[in-house]
């Protein structure tokens, strides 16, 4: 339990009613490192991701983030910590509100977390859009007016707006075309180099995992099989 560990997961168990989706999974992750969770669909990768994010409370086990135990915190106590661990989901259209402009979706974390200033807020949003390789003019569009890759970049910008230390990437490129996939992966790699982010990278594509991850944890039927 050294201090340079960003995330330390021990004996994690996630249940949905009588079904045990994750059964005693352990792994740890340092800042600036990419750890891949790899396995067939239904093996509990995404449930692990949700439990790490505390969006689905685990039935048992420990999730330590930056040295703090998250599983014992109440929803209210968790709220100030949430900006530091951000998700990027598989379906880029589903995670952005269809009714809001991209600009507002990216500004929303700033507003929710009380870091929005009318003077420099819009410039901050434009900077984030630029950082993920989107023309700031795209800020006026709504999610359905963007392509899947553009939308996923907007989702990454929104995650960056919170100022995270850890990104939980739940199949971030699985729904994208192979040509666009490389662009998004390169963007993620560049962000990691610049910001020193930790990535928990969930993916079922072994080729992508081998190319992108520092370490790989293999999962099958809710358990870790190697890693």
């Amino acid at each position, binding site marked *: 339990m050294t201090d340079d560990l960003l995330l330390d997961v021990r004996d994690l168990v996630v249940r949905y009613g009588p079904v045990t989706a994750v059964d005693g999974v352990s792994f740890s992750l340092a800042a600036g490192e990419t750890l891949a969770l790899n396995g067939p669909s239904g093996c509990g990768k995404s449930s692990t991701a949700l439990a790490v994010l505390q*969006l689905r409370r685990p039935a048992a086990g420990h999730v330590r983030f930056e040295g703090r135990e998250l599983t014992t915190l109440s929803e209210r106590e968790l*709220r100030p910590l949430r*900006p530091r661990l951000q998700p990027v989901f598989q379906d880029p259209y589903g995670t952005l509100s269809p*009714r809001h402009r991209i600009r507002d979706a990216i500004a*929303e974390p700033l507003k929710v977390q009380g870091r929005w200033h009318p003077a420099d807020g819009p410039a901050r949003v434009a900077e984030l859009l630029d950082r993920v*390789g*989107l023309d700031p003019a795209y800020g006026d569009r709504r999610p359905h007016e963007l*392509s899947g890759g*553009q939308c996923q970049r907007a989702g990454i910008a*929104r995650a960056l707006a919170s100022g995270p230390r850890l990104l939980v990437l739940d199949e971030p490129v699985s729904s994208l075309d192979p040509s666009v996939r490389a662009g998004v992966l390169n963007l993620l790699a560049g962000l990691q180099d610049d910001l020193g982010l930790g990535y928990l990278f969930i993916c079922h594509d072994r080729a992508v995992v081998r190319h992108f991850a520092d370490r790989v944890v293999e999962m099958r039927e809710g358990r870790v099989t190697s890693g």
Partner: protein
Amino acid sequence: MRSRIRRLAGAAALTRLCCLIAVLAAVGLLPWLSGRDPALAVLRARSAEQDPTEEALESVRRDLGLDAGPLSLLAGWASGLLHGDLGTSWVSGTEVLPSVVSGLQVSLALMGASLGVAVLLACALVAPVLVRGRASAGAWAAMLAAVPEFLLATVALLVFGVWLGWLPTSGWVGPQNMVLPAVALGVPAGGLLGRLVADALPAVLDERWVELWRGAGVSRARIAGAALRRVLPPLVPQFGMAAVGLTGGAVAVETVFAVPGIGRTALGAAKSQDLPLLQGSVLGLLALGLVTGALAAFTRRRLLGPALRDASLALPPVRPVRAHPAVPSALFAVLAVTIGWGLLRDPYAVNTTARLAAPSWTHPLGTDGLGRDVLARLGHGAASTVGTAAAVCLLSLLVALALGFLPRIAEGAADIANALPPVIVGILVAAVVGPGTGGAALAVALISWPALSAHAAALVQEVRASAFLTAQRAIGASPLWILTRHVLPSVAAPVARHALLRLPGIALALASLGFLGLGAQPPAPEWGLLLDESRAYVERAPWAALAPAVALALLAGLAVSGAALARGQRTRRATPAPVTKEAPVGV
């Protein structure tokens, strides 16, 4: 999964029971709820010349048991009810039970006859669909279903009773008395039944088995029979609701044709503040509705058998009849022009020299019995009716939004609200707060929310399940932020549009209460009231009755075509969004 369904059904059953008990308790507590001193009403009714001194009132109160407080009043009424004792009428001093029983007999006969009319009409509407296989009789059937009973009764009375003189217009002597009331009560119900079946049939006839049977050489008649057998069971609950609606329609029809049924008894008792008789007759009407509902459930179980338990016999989705927006727009334009023109005129100006004048340039729609301009009254009546209907819409929208977040509680309450026709709720509310626009609005609001709340509940469920709400929690948004910024805005707008489209239907319900004297009071120009007032001199001035009747029919048309338009829109929006093609980033 199954245990969850059972738990949900249990919660709904519990709220259903609670709501039923609440309605019964409200009926039982009527004397206490009505607030105004019933002792005064009783004293006036019993001996008009006696002064309402404090001692006399006190003795009446003791007599009625009003001094004991609400709980013992309720207990006394309930124990009397269990012994088959409904008390004695305050006005006539006779037992309530016999008049309720005789009223029920008359009403049952009338409803039986009107059910016959309804089934005949429904067969006539469904037959072309079965024979030709495709075209839906939708528009006509929907129109018939939307015409309120009181309007149909008045028009039938005018045409066949007064002008043609074919049939008696009032009383309850022989079978000839039954024809017009049964038609007036049965046609809207038949239109509804016919429309439900005719809407569902084309999709069923498109199912695979029909082709298979045809290929195997099964006769058309047997296929038609099997298709009906397939369509009917899932629709039985709605048939049950239509039958329950008959109890509400019976009040209006019995009043128009002076049929001594239970509905007319209830209305008369409400107007004369004869609360024991009112309690007894409303109880009779409720029992009638509940028995019909139970019969419907029983029939469904017999028809479906074990398939019901698996809830697997749902009908294929109805293919929406693409309503052309021109129809509601045209109806709206005609109504709006008439109303706007009428608004410029004075609805209260009495001109005794120009009573019952025929339409002319000075009075485009003629004048009524007091020489008031019919067009002006129509216009101003619309303004107040639409205004009240808008308020009711808003109220039921708020209720629906609140209950949309509590679907389990809402479901049971919605069952009871669906089982209560607006007229009966109107009678109860009028008995408590007195007849008036506010009471009528409250009555309609009390039962107009279920459709909206079901829509809201579906939307809430959809939004809650969406990934972007999870994404909201991930950025540390509070539940209040998520509710006010994301859930409410995505639910409120579609439900509000839905509520707006129900406005004509709500206005019709308000007009029917006005027609029965439970809503706006004279000299207010309310459409239902206009129709009621003009009945007195309809032979001499038919236009005075015709104008509100036509306006109400237009409103019914607007209600139907607007609802069809909304249905079309909803199904269109449910189709998944087109998949966007991937393009290089940073263009």
